[in-house]
């Protein structure tokens, strides 16, 4: 009996090694960002890389906000991401309710449109949008980025919210309807409170979709002081003027918010996305 248990344990060993390897590979690049941010430049360029900073110093964070525009970049990114989140939710929450609750002809067609938006390469649309945005004065304007980021993430938000509303039992709403509540009242008082986790999850998805976006930002924003963090940081690559510890400190500031949020509500986001993918 005892030997059976130990044999089973021995067979588990490769799996444990695999688990540790995957965990290590997942964490290491982020750790390396952190490590480099706190390394003094003198210790950075050595044949044997320092695996952790051995002196307690501010590293690249020392006068970071004076030396780089990271404060302005993050502020711009925040404005774009918040605008995108609010617009996406405002549009998607009603659309999701309509698609989930109302049976009407052409419903499948609208579902197809949502899926079709995922096939559109941003790079194809960046060209016609560039000409349109010039006409409308949206080039070099944060609103332009809010508008286009919303367009790309809203279908996903609808998808997640519709999945959540599908799981809310009809009966509660029907009794409210008979009591004379309007569609809007029903949504506000019954549906929204019940799907709060999905609303939060889709808000995080929308927020960090805009937070991460690069292509539209790099083509539509020309002024340095209107740059979001994604394009601002990209300009530092291959450029030798900024010390690497400072570059990595800035990258870390940009990376931590999404990591923290995704860690906290990962379960809800995955549940929302998977409900669509698992059902097919």
């Amino acid at each position: 009996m005892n030997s059976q248990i130990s044999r089973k344990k021995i067979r588990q060993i490769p799996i444990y090694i695999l688990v540790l390897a995957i965990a290590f590979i997942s964490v290491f690049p982020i750790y390396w960002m952190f490590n480099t941010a706190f390394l003094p430049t003198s210790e950075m360029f050595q044949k044997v890389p320092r695996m952790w900073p051995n002196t307690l110093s501010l590293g690249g964070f020392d006068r970071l906000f004076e030396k780089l525009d990271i404060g302005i970049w993050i502020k711009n990114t925040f404005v774009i991401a918040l605008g995108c989140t609010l617009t996406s939710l405002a549009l998607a929450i009603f659309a999701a309710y309509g698609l989930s609750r109302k049976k009407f002809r052409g419903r499948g067609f609208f579902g197809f449109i949502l899926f079709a938006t995922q096939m559109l390469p941003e790079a194809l649309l960046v060209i016609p949008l560039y000409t349109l945005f010039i006409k409308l004065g949206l080039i070099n304007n944060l609103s332009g980025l809010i508008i286009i980021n919303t367009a790309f993430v809203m279908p996903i938000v609808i998808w997640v919210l519709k999945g959540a509303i599908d799981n809310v039992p009809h009966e509660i709403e029907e009794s409210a309807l008979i009591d004379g509540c309007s569609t809007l009242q029903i949504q506000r008082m019954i549906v929204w409170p019940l799907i709060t986790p999905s609303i939060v999850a889709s808000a995080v998805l929308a927020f960090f979709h805009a937070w991460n976006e690069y292509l539209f930002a790099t083509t539509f924003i020309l002024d340095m002081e209107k740059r979001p963090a994604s394009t601002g940081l990209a300009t530092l690559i291959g450029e030798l003027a900024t010390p690497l510890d400072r570059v990595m400190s800035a990258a870390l500031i940009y990376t931590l918010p999404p990591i923290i949020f995704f860690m906290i509500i990962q379960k809800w986001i995955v549940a929302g996305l998977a409900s669509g993918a698992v059902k097919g």
Partner: protein
Amino acid sequence: MNGVRNIKRSGRFTHWFLIAPAFIYLGLTLGFPLVRGLLLSFTETNTLNPLMSTFKGIDNYKRLFSSSSFLPSLGVTLSYAFFSVIGALFIGMICALIMNRTMKAKFLLRATITLPWAAPPIAVALVFTWIFNAQYGVANYGLRKLGIGATEIQWFDNPSLAMPALILVTVWMTFSLTSLILLAALQSVPKELNESAMIDGASPLKIFLYITIPFIRPTIYVMTLLLSIWALRRFDIIWVLTEGGPVERTTTLVVRLYRESFLYQNLGYGAAIGMVGFVLSVSLTFFYFRASKKVEDLH
């Protein structure tokens, strides 16, 4: 009685009021530009003066299909998509199977694999250029330690290594979401099914092949499709890591499009490349739906 009729009546058009804003928005911001992009692809338009365009018929397409760099960049695009999708599915599946089996592993992996998924692509690109630095990068240091690769490997500057390195970074970024979604599918496989097969003496491999895989097949299809489309669309990390180089070895259609439109100022030609990429995505989707339907019909 009257009340019930009112409910019915009030419900007849409300769905249009509910869904119209979102879909009108999508029409204006995606549908309309798509049509304009198609029209632009038949013109010669300079990026510096984009409101002036001259109609040129199918000249852009002729030029594109006869250009000697078109087929190579199509090949680069397809091989990038193929290998990064296979990599993400393979590692994602292994990871999901482990998480589905042991609680301890699930706890550890769930937390750690969130990082690659959550980290912004540009930050990922920044840190990987440093990790893969030829002289001081920790990747080469690690390989030296292991006794592989004694010299300084130029990852992103070596024509034959740039694409594999790019695929590696891409798989790192995409395997975790793939794995979390596959895990959600695995957890929907009824436990009784596995147990009864085990009692009948089926090996774990057989259970995986004949029970698990068929059960989660729809999810695998959807993930394959989504990963492929994302790979065909991806621009940010490719541009920041390699700018399509060295010697065009990582120039995907999207990189070519960006270069033509915003560095060489040929908006019309860029739009034509974009349409080709879009047709590629659409035909891929069409192919997947046909294939998945056929397989479903067989079972």
